[in-house]
Each structure stands twice: as C-alpha cells, then as structure tokens.
C-alpha cells in the first residue's frame, strides 16, 4: 500500500491502489462481461476458442416460450411486490421514527428480522405454512412472502432519510397553519422522495432476482431466476442462457444506474450515502436489540 502519508483526500490514487481497484472491479463485473462476450460466440458449448460472431442465441432466446413465461411471471411479481413494499415499508419507517411507544424496540427487531434470516429458512417456513393452510402455491404465494421479506429494506432506506429530517420543519409547518395532509404533501414528501425512489428500485430488483423464495413457494411455475437455474444444467441451453442473461443484466444495469443518477441529482451525495448505508445499519441494530433509528 502506498500509505505512510495517510489521508491525502484528493490525491491521485497510487499504482498499488489502482491495481487493487482494478482487481476488485474485475472480480465484481468481469464474469458478467465475459458472459456477454460468449453470448456472441457461434458455438453452443461454453468454451474457448471463439468460433465467430453470431446473434442467433439472442434470436433463440427471444423465441423460447418457457423463457417468455418465466420473464412475464418475474415481471408480474416484481410489479406488484415493489409498490406493496413501498407502502408497507414507508408506513413502518414512519411509525418507528415518529412515535414513542412501548414495544417499539421489539417491533423494530421484528421488522429487521427478515433481512437477517436466510431466505432459505423463510422460503421453507412459508412452504410449510401454505401447505398447512391448504393454500395452492402460485404467483400470489410468492408475492406475499416476497413482500414481507422485502419491505423491511424499504423501511431501512426511508427510515434513514426520515431520521435525518429536522422535526422542527414539520412543527413550523403546523404552526404556520398547515393541516396534517399539507405537512405530508409539502414538507415530508419532498424530503423522502429520493429515498422512496431508491427503495422502489431496490425492492423491484430484489423481487425480480429472487431465486430462493420463488423456488419454494411457486409450485410448478417458473420465474426468470428459476428458469436460469434449471437451464444452466442443460448443456443445450447454455448459449441461450448467456444471451438472455446478457440482455437482462444490461437492462437492469441501465435502469438502476439511471435511477440512482436521477436520485443523486435530487439529493446531496451525503444523503445518498446515508440512504445506502442506512439499509445495512437497521439490519444490524435489530439484531443487537438497539434502536434502529438512532443507529442510522
């Protein structure tokens, strides 16, 4: 490390740091880039050498009916789960940050629990509960279970933003004659809007990408991650998986990046960092029984 002259905040990174960042970047994004590269390879085995350029895997992917069904299912689920999570998560964030009552710590812990408990455990528990209640597995069961373990993420992000909010502003608005609704509409909402947008994006991608819960609570249908899972074991399918994975990743990358950029423009980078780190803080404070809001 270049480091005996500790922190020069705006100094250009040294060679060692640059090499380190390059390795981390390659570690995180390299596999996907290579997958994209292979999706143009004119060979149905996932191996070098490169046989020539082709777009036929993209054509095959677009023509695959089981894939259509899976993508449609994932989209339906995420389109329903994200708004439900926004509503439930914002309500929880508001309740936990704005009111003092007995059992508040316990409730905060309960809200944080789905973020810590492995999805495997949640999925299996849900499967058993649905079986016991004689509920047929399908899209509604996936939606219900996903919503419950995704909305705490919204609570974390929005809660972090609400906590940064000066209560005085709300009180000032009330003193100036605003009613409750006006306070929400003109004072609170503009302040939490970027957090809501970020939380919405995260809830959508979490839901769209979730494998574990769908695998246990979907029954015989498929979502996109489930389709990928079953297809990667089938050697005839790998080239198509590459192509569709490249497409989906590109779309997601674009959506998330543009979304986060827009949010960043509406808020300070300090607030943006607080929102992102807020999520991780709530999870931990729930586990240690501390107050999640004061930790954020």
């Amino acid at each position, binding site marked *: 490390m270049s*480091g005996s002259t500790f922190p020069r905040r705006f*100094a250009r990174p040294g060679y060692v740091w640059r090499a380190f960042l390059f390795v981390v970047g390659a570690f*995180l994004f390299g596999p*996907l880039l290579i*997958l994209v590269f292979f999706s143009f390879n004119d060979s149905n085995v996932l191996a070098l050498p490169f046989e020539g350029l082709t777009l036929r895997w993209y054509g095959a992917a677009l023509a695959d009916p089981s894939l259509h069904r899976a993508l449609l299912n994932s989209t339906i689920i995420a389109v329903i789960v994200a708004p439900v999570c926004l509503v439930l998560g914002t309500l929880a964030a508001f309740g936990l940050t704005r009111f003092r009552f007995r059992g508040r710590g316990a*409730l905060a812990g309960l809200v944080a629990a789905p973020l810590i408990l492995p999805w495997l455990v949640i999925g299996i528990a849900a499967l*058993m509960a649905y079986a016991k209640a004689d509920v047929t597995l399908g899209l509604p069961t996936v939606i219900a279970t996903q919503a419950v373990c995704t909305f705490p993420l919204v609570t974390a992000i929005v809660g972090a933003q609400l906590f940064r909010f000066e209560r005085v502003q*709300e009180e000032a608005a009330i003193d100036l004659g605003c009613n409750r609704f006006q306070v929400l509409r003109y004072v609170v909402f503009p302040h939490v809007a970027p957090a809501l947008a970020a939380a919405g994006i995260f809830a959508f991608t979490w839901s769209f990408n979730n*494998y574990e819960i769908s695998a246990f609570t979907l029954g015989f249908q498929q979502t996109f991650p489930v389709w990928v899972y079953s297809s990667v074991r089938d050697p005839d399918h790998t080239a198509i998986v590459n192509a569709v994975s490249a497409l989906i990743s590109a779309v997601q990358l674009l959506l998330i990046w543009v979304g986060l950029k827009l949010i960043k423009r509406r808020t300070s980078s300090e607030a943006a960092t607080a929102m992102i780190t807020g999520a991780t803080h709530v999870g931990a404070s729930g586990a240690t029984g501390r107050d999640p809001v004061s930790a954020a």
Partner: protein
Amino acid sequence: MTRRAGDTTARSAAAVLAAPTTALLVFFVVPFAVLVQMSLIKFPPNVASGFSLEHYWDVVSDQLNLKIALTTVVIVTIAMALMLLIALPLAYYMVFKAGRRELFLLLALVVADELAPVVRVYAWQVILGRNGLINWILPGPPIDWLLYSPFAVVVALATSYITYTTIPIYAAMKAIEPVTLEAATDLGAGWFQQFRRILVPLAAPGIFVAAILVYIPMYADFVAADIVGGPSSYLLGQRIRDVILEEGDWGTGSAMNLVMLGLSGVFALIAYRMSRLNRMATS
C-alpha cells in the same frame, strides 16, 4: 404531533403500524411458528402424534450432517476472510482516498449486488471451467479443480456477498476522524500499525454488522454450491433443501434449519462480543 396527549399518539402509531405489523405476523411469524412446530411434531405429523425432540436427535446424530456442517463452516469462513481482506482496504480507500469517486464506487458496489445473483454465480463457469478462460490463458494441461470444487464455491460466495461486507465497514470507517490518522502519522506510526491500532478497532462495529448480514445468510446459501460446487463442497443449505424437497422429510428439515440458525446465532454472538471487547480496549 409532539404536543398531543399520550393516548392519541399511541392510537396514531397503531394506525400507521397496523398494516406492516399484520403482514409480518401473518406471513413471517406464523410460518416461522409452523416451522418450529414441524420440527417438534412426531412422525407421521397429525393431531394425535404428539411432540418429541427426535428430529433434533436425528439431525445431530447423523454422521453425514456433521461432515457437511464441517465443510460448510470451513468454506463459509474462508469466504468471509477473503471478503474482509477485500472489504477492509476497499472501505478504507472509499472513505479516505477516493475523494469525488467515493459515491461512484458506492453505487458500483450496489449495482453489482442488484444484478441477477444466479446469473452472476453461473458466469464463473465460463471463467473457471475446463475449457474456460483461466485454463485457456494458462499453459499446460487444464486444471480441473477450478470449477465444481470448494475453491469455486468460495469465489462465488465472495462475489455474491462482497457488497454487504463492504458497506457496513465503510459506514463505520466514515465515522473515523481523518485527524486521528494524521495524528498517528505525526507520531510515527507506520501504515500497518495505524491499520491494526486505529482502523480495525474503530471499524469493529462495522465488521460485526458485516458478520451478521453476511456470515449467517452464507450458512444457508445453496445457489453458489449448486451451480459451481461439486460433491466435495456439498453445503448445509443444499442438504436442508434436499431433505425438504427431495426426501420430503419436513420434520428433520425443520429441525436442521433451526439447528443451523442456532449455530449461526452463536457465531454472531461471539462476533458481537469480540467487537465490544475491541471497543472497550480502545476507549
């Protein structure tokens, strides 16, 4: 709202929190209670069967489970160590060195996590496979242990959870005053001493958060081991999934789940204690 009487506050709190609490109770707490009940009920499960601890005994006394648990502890711990090795310098760089690039790096970490996880794990097949990138670049006979091996699982796990390891540590380091490090430099501390005596102790709470958010879920991960693992890296998560879905033995599967949660809870408690001790030693 602060000026209202106590019981109105309680009533509006109840109004706001009713929906999320109900959702959690119905779709989270009740299923968990069913899981616990399943682990205790005698086989075959029906009203008359009564409760016993035999499923737990089955789980603990099965040699195969012990072997799998051991493999899991080793693989997951190595993955965690690898991630800390990356996350500590990365978080340090983001907080103290990145300057204007700080938010970009944070967003890149988040975006990396939001991309389809199953696809990300699967992509390692292309790199590590017998005809993959590494074997193509390296001369000599192909290396077979790269894919479908514990090595591949460690790599795939580390890429899957690096975001949630780095961000809490980053948040903890964010609270460190740069002056502290400057003072240490002035007093003649080298980078390793600063790292050991200042950064790690002050970032300890963040490391604990990372342990909670990453170490525990990794024990139940079966995606990585399914896609890039082999017979020698059969993990607890896969075992539980197979017992439930393939063998259909819900009693033993539930007991296994709870034993696993209990074990990871113990590990988390140890991590918490360690982070507390560290903080006491430095304050």
